[in-house]
């Protein structure tokens, strides 16, 4: 089991320590530990069913049963009800483009600021999201359910950004999207990261994940196998054999 290097971890943004999680039956995550620094672009990779989504859900308080500790800027997330977690500054873009289909694009985005209450700056954030995804501005009055897959993913990410988050959690944002759209999405993720938001990305496209992220954790069967700088992992034989098919 790895322990975070105290030198690189003065006051982490997010610290997961000895986390186990289950949906009611067997443990799906076992003794997972992970640290993320303020401003980092971190990725979690691993085969299907490794437990990546479960880890993200545990952070957002969406797992029915967890053991261990998850702290975000000093707040214990395991003791925080899930509906209070967004207001701490954690935006979770779940796997599978969960938009509100019968709401317009704009209503979907406004809903993303729900946890901010009546914050006067919501209008500014909306303008910022429209700058990020001009396509959404064009389609602002269209029902989200009628958009293409790529556009729905933009809505889902834009809705996350409407929280004005400290941490943006992205679960498989390029699943099922055309390669061109995938590239465009990743460019936006970089832009978001550049603007000071920490990004935690789960991506099944491992080469893309390692290109985008600064550092990555590798998961398998509910446990963290190893962790490293993304560029090094891209050349790591274990990764190349298992995930890149080289």
């Amino acid at each position: 089991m790895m322990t975070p290097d105290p030198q690189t971890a003065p006051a982490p943004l997010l610290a997961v320590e000895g986390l186990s999680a289950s949906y009611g039956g067997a443990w799906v995550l076992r003794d997972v530990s992970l640290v993320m620094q303020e401003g980092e672009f971190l990725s979690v990779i691993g085969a299907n069913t490794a437990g990546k989504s479960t880890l993200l859900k545990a952070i957002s308080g969406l797992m029915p049963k967890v053991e261990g500790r998850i702290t975000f800027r000093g707040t214990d997330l395991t003791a925080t009800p899930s509906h209070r977690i967004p207001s701490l500054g954690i935006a979770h873009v779940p796997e599978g483009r969960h938009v509100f289909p019968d709401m317009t694009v704009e209503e979907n985005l406004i809903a993303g600021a729900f946890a901010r209450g009546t914050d006067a700056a919501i209008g500014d954030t909306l303008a910022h999201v429209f700058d990020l995804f001009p396509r959404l501005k064009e389609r602002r009055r269209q029902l989200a359910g009628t958009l293409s897959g790529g556009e729905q993913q933009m809505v889902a990410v834009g809705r996350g950004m409407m929280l004005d988050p400290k941490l943006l959690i992205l679960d498989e944002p390029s699943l099922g999207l055309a390669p061109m759209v995938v590239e465009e999405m990743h460019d936006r993720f970089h832009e978001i990261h550049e603007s000071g938001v920490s990004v935690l990305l789960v991506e099944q496209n491992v080469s893309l994940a390692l290109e985008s992220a600064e550092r990555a954790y590798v998961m398998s069967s509910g446990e963290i196998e190893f962790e490293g700088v993304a560029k090094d992992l891209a050349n790591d034989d274990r990764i190349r054999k298992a995930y890149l098919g080289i």
Partner: protein
Amino acid sequence: MTRQRLLPVLLFAGVIILALIPLGLDPRGYEMRILCITLLFASLGQAWNIVGGLANQISLGHAAYFGIGAYTSTILLKLFSLSPWLGGVIGMILAVAFALLLSLPTARLKGHYYALATLAAGEAIRVIANSWADVTGGPVGISVPYLPDGSLWMMQFSTVLPNYYLFLAALVVICLVFWKIKSGALGYRLRAIKENEQAAEVIGVDTYRSKLIAACVSAAITAFLGTLYAQFQFFFDPDTVFGVATISVKMALIAILGGVGRLSGPLVGAAFIIPMEEMANSYFGSSAAGLSQFAYGAILVLVILLNPHGLTALFAQLRDRFTGKGGSHDRSVA
């Protein structure tokens, strides 16, 4: 939107018309009774609409609340001569307690599982009411004690005319409650939950609490309607007020048939179903009582096949076709 402005005007006109109808009818007659029952079921459908339409929880156990209301006020009236207004409020409290209890195992259930769990809970209450004869009178039923000089305070009248206006007032109040919830903050949260529960959770909606509030409001209203029913009917038994077909399914059916989640849905649904049921019963006689259940099923399937958004949407569609307006039904129709 002109349609948004038109709606309150239409509703106001509707209330005026409904208030004037009895003037032309025999206050002790059969038609008055049908009208009363129609208003009552429009209210019941609207109460169900809060849970089934706004929170998207298809409950098939609302008879539990209805029966709790009917029995609570009637038993308290019998034992302590307590005014049904007060008994009704106690019934509301008991119904909310039951809704809270029921939410413990069911709040996380979805779709069919929720429907089946509520169905089972409603049946359990019916069985209890049948066997707890000391208090409820059991399968023999219970009569509301007759007070020769009736009064509003004791909710007893010499004709059904005051009952009619009570039902009408209840319907107006319940429609206002429905509209207030639908267009308010809770309605916004429920809409998010209905459209995508997971997305609602990640934006910070307390999905459990929102559904629970909707369930409690709906339960309380349904219980009070049970009291109004008891004071109108004077006699009932467990199989009537706790019945699956007589109450639970009928409430759901009225809302779904009319247009689930819409203000006008239960109004249209009740105006359609109740008179039709009465006609079927008088035409085929009580020997074919099961036939009306069969007719329900057939009509429901037909409407859902024609338009799953219910009769109101179907009407809008037809109107659009006749007025030559393009596009399908408008989601903004209330």
